[in-house]
């Protein structure tokens, strides 16, 4: 699959923002219900929440750039009953409204019940939005690498892990050590790493059962009489002299897989984990750790597309998908 930059930016940035906002809301709920003080000043948490909300907004704007005809984007709520993209649109707009109100309520120190209610809705909606985004991919049967429950799991884990890192990085940038939160972020990152490790293992393990012979389906009559099995086939000519929409969108070369995986492992997992464990609270390190994580996630999301092979590739000569 062709990896469009706007979609990479959308899923990575809004994923981190959604994860961060959900965790901030959770922290608020735990602190209020449990009657404990949050580490660091409330204003600092509000600032972190605003930063996370900004990431979500940038991500959603980027997702609109992916549309070839954004004038009709307002219609995207029409098929809520069947389309995951429709659900994502509805839930992300709802999330933006609630999260904006939540950040405002924090800023203006609203009454505890109101703040608590907004935090609760934010906490519920954030993973719902991430799940809807992931299900857009996971619901597509023609793409074997996507049509699995591993995809929503990975999106949720990576969103929450990068979100937790964002929270810790912002608080530490202002000199707050937040050891407990750093531990949570480290656990989430390690969990996300395990989920991706299993996903890469899954990709390498299964070859795919649909062959080019099945795709063109010529069942018999080519070989000697009696031979009724599906015949072997190969593409002679794709019928067009240059690229088409189909070749651009689906028939991408699978190059740079290994370096991009390394980039993901090092930048998204290893470096932020080291930084979290080292307990450095200084703004340069914080900024570097979060930036590295996001850069690595861009590589991860790029791989998610480039390694996925669509069934239509069989008609363009692939032997198996």
């Amino acid at each position, binding site marked *: *699959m062709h990896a469009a930059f706007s979609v990479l930016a959308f899923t990575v940035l809004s994923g981190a923002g959604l994860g961060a906002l959900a965790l901030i809301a959770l922290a608020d709920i735990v602190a209020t219900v449990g009657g404990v003080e949050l580490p660091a000043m409330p204003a600092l948490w509000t600032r972190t929440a605003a930063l996370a909300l900004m990431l979500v907004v940038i991500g959603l704007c980027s997702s609109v750039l*992916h*549309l*070839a*005809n*954004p004038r*009709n*984007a307002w*219609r*995207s*709520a*029409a*098929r809520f009953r*069947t*389309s*995951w*993209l*429709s659900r994502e*649109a509805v839930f992300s707009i709802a999330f933006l409204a609630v999260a904006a109100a939540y950040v405002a309520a924090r800023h203006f120190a609203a009454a505890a019940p109101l703040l608590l209610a907004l935090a609760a809705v934010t906490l519920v909606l954030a993973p719902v939005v991430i799940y809807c985004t992931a299900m*857009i991919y996971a619901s*597509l*049967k*023609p*793409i074997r690498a996507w049509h699995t429950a591993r995809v929503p799991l990975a999106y949720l884990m990576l969103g929450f892990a990068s979100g937790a890192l964002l929270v810790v990085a912002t608080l530490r940038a202002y000199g707050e050590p937040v050891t407990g939160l750093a531990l949570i972020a480290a656990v989430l990152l390690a969990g996300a790493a395990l989920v991706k490790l299993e996903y890469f293992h899954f990709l390498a393990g299964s070859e795919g059962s*649909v062959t*080019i*012979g*099945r*795709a*063109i*389906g*010529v*069942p*018999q*009559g*080519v*070989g*000697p*009489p009696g031979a009724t099995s599906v*015949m*072997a*086939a190969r*593409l*002679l*000519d*794709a*019928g*067009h*002299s*240059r*690229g*088409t*929409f*189909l070749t651009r*969108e689906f028939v991408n070369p699978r190059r740079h897989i290994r370096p991009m995986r390394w980039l993901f492992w090092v930048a998204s997992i290893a470096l932020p984990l080291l930084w979290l464990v080292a307990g450095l609270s200084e703004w340069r390190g914080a900024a570097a750790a979060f930036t590295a994580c996001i850069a690595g996630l861009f590589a991860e999301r790029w791989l998610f597309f480039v390694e996925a092979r*669509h*069934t*239509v590739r069989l*008609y*363009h000569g692939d032997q198996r998908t």
Partner: protein
Amino acid sequence: MKLGLVVDLDTCVGCHACATACKEWNGASAISGPLSDYDPYGSDPSGVWLNRVRHYEVGAYPDVKTVNFPMSCLHCEDAACVTVCPTGASYKRDDGIVLVDQDRCMGCNLCAWACPYGARELDTASGTMKKCTLCVDRVHDVALPEEERQPACVLACPTHARHFGDFDDPASKVSTLSAERGGFALLDELGYRPVNRYLPPRAPPTVVPDPPPAEERGALHRLIARAKAVLAG
């Protein structure tokens, strides 16, 4: 009603007339036209086509054959492109034809991803998704003579490898042809229930040369012997 096509892989010669006729009719049609071309006279020409013909080599030597393979939308009964469409631009009509409402499409590409057959192409000039309309603006047009109320690809095919009709009617030409010739659906195991049917290439006649009868063999031998004698002088 279940309108669709039968494509005869036995008689298709791979001339691309169907694809060209499709481009001509639908490019000027109000349903989804124009079908934009990008850099048409330059070094990297490309553009939107609703019907593409590919060519495959099937089998293993010496039992090998070239199969010309035209593909357009199969108008699936369980069309995933319709269910994933967020704006409601993609829809399936009562007569079975799957269409894109060009005024509602936002160009998100999701329907093209959901289709395993590559039946949809994004027109980057209009920003909307284009696909085979089964020439909906021909097949129901009572102003046309009845024999012309068929898709442009069917009318253009010089070897009658394409047939149009209603698969819900067991007596229609497409139903009977498909039943007689073992018409098959593409990748039906994926569960989209495509309507179009493909007729497999017929088995080539098996030619087993007869052994020559004994007396003829004798005559030939006599002839050769006489020729040798004459040559020897």
